[in-house]
């Protein structure tokens, strides 16, 4: 534990946080453009060429808005809600391996903030804490709609985390490790996990949509029924934090899906072993980011295609379809692994 190590990690954290923030910022712009194109419109095109300064304008607007804290709300919790949402959204990025290690001046720098051997458990822990942001925000607003939304959000998150975890167990059985670095390295040398686990990928993807509160599972913020749900009473940058956290969550969960199922930083048709350390790392980062962006686009594409699920439909899908499917997937995977080990 030398000072260079600490400096290196601090730098990496800064870079990762900045990148996630910028990606989240521009995800709002891309989302609006995407929605525009799907609906035969142009989307934002006034601020700067093609409207690329739109996210900055939006952020600036949010900063200058009046801060309103409802008089009957619990002020501490009211402020804590969006902070927690933002914090948990950022924390998940710590265990994602962004690329293979890079060599700078004879030092091998790992492009992963923390390669802990329980990476996936850590992700699950942090993601389930993300519900608290929503819960606390909805509760502290002291508003019926917000409370309803918070309840919905919490029950939705709990139901879908189950199926998500079950679908992941199959991946863990394949790889035999909880470390995301190990899972990725196995995919770099072997086949991607989606080949072994198409059903698991599908279940994980649907659950990720639900976990990020994205349409068609955006019940906690249902504009039409709950009037923006848990962030109804929020204004100014606190609202901005909630909205921002959603996009960061989306980015991180897409990166996670890419890491777990789509080979992480593995560039297809390129043998990384032939490349030198630094160029392999750059190629890997490009590969991971393009996979992540593709998944983000699919998330958006789904949002602007499908209408919102009804609450009972959501629960039916989660408990009656996804969990049994994930269980079956787990059992079949286990059986196949046993069979191949025997043979």
């Amino acid at each position, binding site marked *: 534990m030398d000072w260079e190590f600490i400096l290196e990690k601090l730098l990496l954290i800064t870079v990762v946080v900045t990148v996630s923030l910028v990606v989240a910022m521009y995800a709002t712009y891309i989302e609006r453009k995407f929605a525009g194109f799907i609906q*035969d419109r*142009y989307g934002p095109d006034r601020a700067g060429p093609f409207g690329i300064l739109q996210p900055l304008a939006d952020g600036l607007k949010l900063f200058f808005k009046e801060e309103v804290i409802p008089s009957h709300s619990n002020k501490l919790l009211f402020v804590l809600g969006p902070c927690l949402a933002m914090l948990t959204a950022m924390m998940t990025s710590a265990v994602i391996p962004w690329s293979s290690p890079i060599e700078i001046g004879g030092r091998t720098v790992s492009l992963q903030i923390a390669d802990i051997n329980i990476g996936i458990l850590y992700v699950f822990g942090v993601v389930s804490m993300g519900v608290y942001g929503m819960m606390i925000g909805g509760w502290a607003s002291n508003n019926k709609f917000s409370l309803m939304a918070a309840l919905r959000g919490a029950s939705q998150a709990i139901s879908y985390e189950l199926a998500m975890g079950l679908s992941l167990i199959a991946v863990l059985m394949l790889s035999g490790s909880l470390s995301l670095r190990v899972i990725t390295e196995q995919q770099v040398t072997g086949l991607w996990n989606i080949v072994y686990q198409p059903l698991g990928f599908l279940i994980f993807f649907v659950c990720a949509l639900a976990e990020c509160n994205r349409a068609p599972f955006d019940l906690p913020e249902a504009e039409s029924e709950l009037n923006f749900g848990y962030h109804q009473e929020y204004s100014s940058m606190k609202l901005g934090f909630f909205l921002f956290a959603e996009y960061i969550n989306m980015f991180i969960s897409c990166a996670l899906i890419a890491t777990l199922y789509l080979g992480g930083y593995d560039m297809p048709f390129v043998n990384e072993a032939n490349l030198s350390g630094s160029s392999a790392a750059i190629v890997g980062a490009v590969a991971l980011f393009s996979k992540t962006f593709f998944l983000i686009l699919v998330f958006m594409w789904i949002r602007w295609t*499908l209408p919102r699920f009804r609450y009972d439909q959501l629960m039916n899908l989660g408990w009656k379809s996804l969990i049994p499917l994930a269980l079956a997937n787990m059992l079949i995977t286990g059986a196949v692994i046993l069979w191949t080990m025997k043979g």
Partner: protein
Amino acid sequence: MEALTQRSKPVDRSPMTWLERIYLWNIFKGMLITFTHFFKKRATIKYPEQTRPFSPVFRGLHVLNRDEEGRERCTACGLCAVACPAEAITMEAAERLPDEENLYREEKYAAKYEINMLRCIFCGLCEDACPKDAIYLSETFAPANYSRKSFIYGKKDLLIPNPVTNKEEYDIAKGLIEKKKKKS
């Protein structure tokens, strides 16, 4: 009752097949539909730069007309004000002085002629009522403004440019030539 169009389709209420019940295939089909919209023509026009053409019978802002010698046609008879259902028009008449014959066509003219654009309903009855062809409705509409007062349009705002002394602007107002684009 007979259907007005042949576009309505009978609703298919047969039980869903397995493929339909798992819902994924239909989601995929829906996503293909939204994807095709990427390549469709945009319905939007970029407004301040692009405008939609008005129909030739559009009733917009009022214009007070001049005759070919550039004299105001209005004689302040007040028929337009009487015809106006919204009571948006007020005027004050004045007598033409001997040296003003190049300014006003008749012996009497409107010294003050005001239309309140917030009251006006753009029905065009003033245009119909006018015996002198002095007022007509153009193809533009009143631009937005910050104060109510600025929506009371006086003679300065309404009169068409003089065709004798200011030919170019008169032609622009008539729509005979294109307005020169501002260099941006």
